[in-house]
């Protein structure tokens, strides 16, 4: 099954979602990544038929489903709060979609037992869902969504209520199960790690629009848009003026600091550099092939999870550099130390506004 969304436009209160076009190919996992309030849930609800469409079309395998009511689309949604029916048992929750389809009791029982086995829920069959743990609830919600053999499954930040450890364990399990079901998945989240782990195709959403989409590699390593780069924690995003060189590179001047970037560029330009793509040295590097060697002084040293984030002042331009704690100790870096930043031209991404 292939989900195609073409030039979709919808409204929720004063919020407008527009120019939404993408495709989730058969058996693939697409993640829409965006900050809170960017319209991710509205988009999923619209695809599921729960919102009125102003413009555009939705297709499943080239069949236009734009005007079908939710119950005729065969698109399952797992919402952020999971929305398990609190007055029903685990069994009744999972059975619900089959009951709504009018399947006979015996057929329902076979299918429910089958899926409960896959999700290891047999021992919880008569348990009220309000008495389940976060992980158990998650499994019930997924089983309930998959039992109807949907054409597409939509996931709306379904792992946000789990603790970090359980969440990562779940990613693995869910990805494996969804692959076995061979169902296209459209997953929305604000969690980059989740998107990177689960997604095969990534789209970035902002203010009701998809501003960039591509493969995981493409989006995370070579974003084209300044907002996307900023959202993906590039941290070093500068606007400068470019002048092309005869060797196929360009010189970008940012407040007097010069960067060499790949490709021929002229005029106003935005560049982005990931802090972890910058090397640091206390002495001028002798044998580096990197095109950019910048001298500066350390103005701050901050812990950033397991790593260390340095801020280096290069001609009044503050550049963020990510290093390991081991490197910090080895280099004995302190405030006001003079350091050399080594940046490859290929590590500098050219961004659009």
């Amino acid at each position, binding site marked *: 099954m292939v989900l195609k969304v073409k030039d979709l436009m919808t409204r929720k209160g004063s919020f407008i979602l527009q120019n939404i076009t993408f495709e989730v190919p058969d058996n693939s996992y697409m993640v829409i990544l965006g900050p809170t309030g960017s319209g991710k849930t509205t988009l999923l*609800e619209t695809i*599921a*038929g*729960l919102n009125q469409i102003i413009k555009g079309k939705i297709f499943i395998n080239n069949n236009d489903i734009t005007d079908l*009511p*939710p*119950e005729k*689309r*065969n*698109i*399952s*949604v797992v*919402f952020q*709060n999971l*929305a398990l*029916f*609190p*007055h029903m048992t685990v069994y009744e929750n999972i059975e*619900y*979609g089959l*009951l*709504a*389809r009018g399947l006979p009791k015996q057929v329902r029982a076979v299918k429910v037992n089958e899926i409960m086995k896959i999700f290891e829920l047999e021992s919880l069959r008569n348990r009220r869902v*309000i008495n389940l743990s976060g992980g158990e609830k998650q499994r019930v919600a997924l089983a*309930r*969504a998959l039992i*109807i053999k949907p054409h597409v499954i939509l996931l709306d930040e379904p792992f946000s209520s789990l603790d970090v450890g359980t969440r990562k364990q779940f990613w693995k399990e869910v990805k494996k199960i969804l692959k076995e079901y061979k169902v296209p998945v459209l997953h929305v989240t604000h969690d980059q790690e989740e998107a990177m782990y689960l997604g095969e195709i990534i789209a970035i959403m902002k203010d009701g629009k998809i501003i960039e989409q591509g493969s995981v590699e493409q989006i995370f390593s070579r974003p084209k848009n300044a907002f996307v780069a900023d959202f993906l924690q590039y941290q070093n995003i500068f606007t400068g003026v470019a002048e092309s060189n005869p060797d196929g590179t360009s010189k970008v001047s940012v407040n007097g600091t010069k960067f060499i970037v790949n490709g021929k560029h002229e005029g106003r330009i935005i560049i982005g550099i990931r802090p972890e793509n910058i090397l640091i040295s206390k002495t001028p590097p002798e044998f580096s092939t990197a095109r950019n060697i910048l001298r500066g002084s350390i103005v701050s040293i901050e812990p950033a999870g397991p790593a260390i984030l340095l801020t280096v002042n290069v001609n009044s331009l503050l550049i963020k550099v990510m290093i390991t704690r081991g490197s910090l100790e080895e280099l004995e870096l302190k405030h006001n130390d003079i350091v050399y930043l080594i940046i490859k031209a290929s590590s500098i991404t050219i961004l659009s506004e």
Partner: protein
Amino acid sequence: MYRMSLLLVFFSLISFISILFILLPIFSLLFSNPLEKLMSIITDPQVISAILVTLLSAASAAIISFLFGTPLAYILVRYEFPGKYIVDSIVELPIMVPHIVAGIALLTVWGPRGLLGAVFSSQGFKVTDTFIGIVIAELFVSFPLYVKAVEDALKLVDPTLEKVSRTLGASYGFTFYKITLPLIKNAIFTGLILSWARGISEFGAVIILTYVILYGPFSGAMPASTLIYNEFTSKGLSEALPIASLLVLVSLVLFIIFKILQTRGEVYGS
């Protein structure tokens, strides 16, 4: 800690006084009757039919409230539309109108020369001075209580549950029956009890529409509140007291039974 417990004592005292304020007249009413007097009116056909008419008419009004009030509450909670707050205020209007005024207003609609009453009269169908007149008067005053009870419960039901149900293949109707209704069943029950109780206690609007049932079922009977008033004004307190006590006793027993039934049900949050 000391301050807290002092506050608790104060609140407990206030609560005790409030409960006493309600209970005292009820107990005083119940215990100011000689037992033989109470026993004699139990077999009085006029009293029995009055109590029966009151209980049945209030129950009918409560059932109509359920049938019409549930969809109305659903629309008011789940949908946004222009004038929603005006509609919501209209529903509450009968609570604010003095009941005698409500009775007169109803008479202008359902009376023999009223807006609808005239049409029904021309077809030989009477509303005033009938059992239906009592039901209409009781419905008018009790309907808002039912709608508000159900509205409050619906606000607590997560709309995502209904959305999920639809995406799982359920129609609007199936979703309402299998998801929404079970989740608000306690509120529906509470709403029914409230509107039924309000119907039993109604006097002002009822007396205007049907003082005595002259036509149709229960012909010749009076609603209990009207009978009590009638006995009080024509024969004095001694005659009105046992009927009032009996009505209170019957209502109390029924309310206690309903409350027990209700607390046995489960309450689901969202």
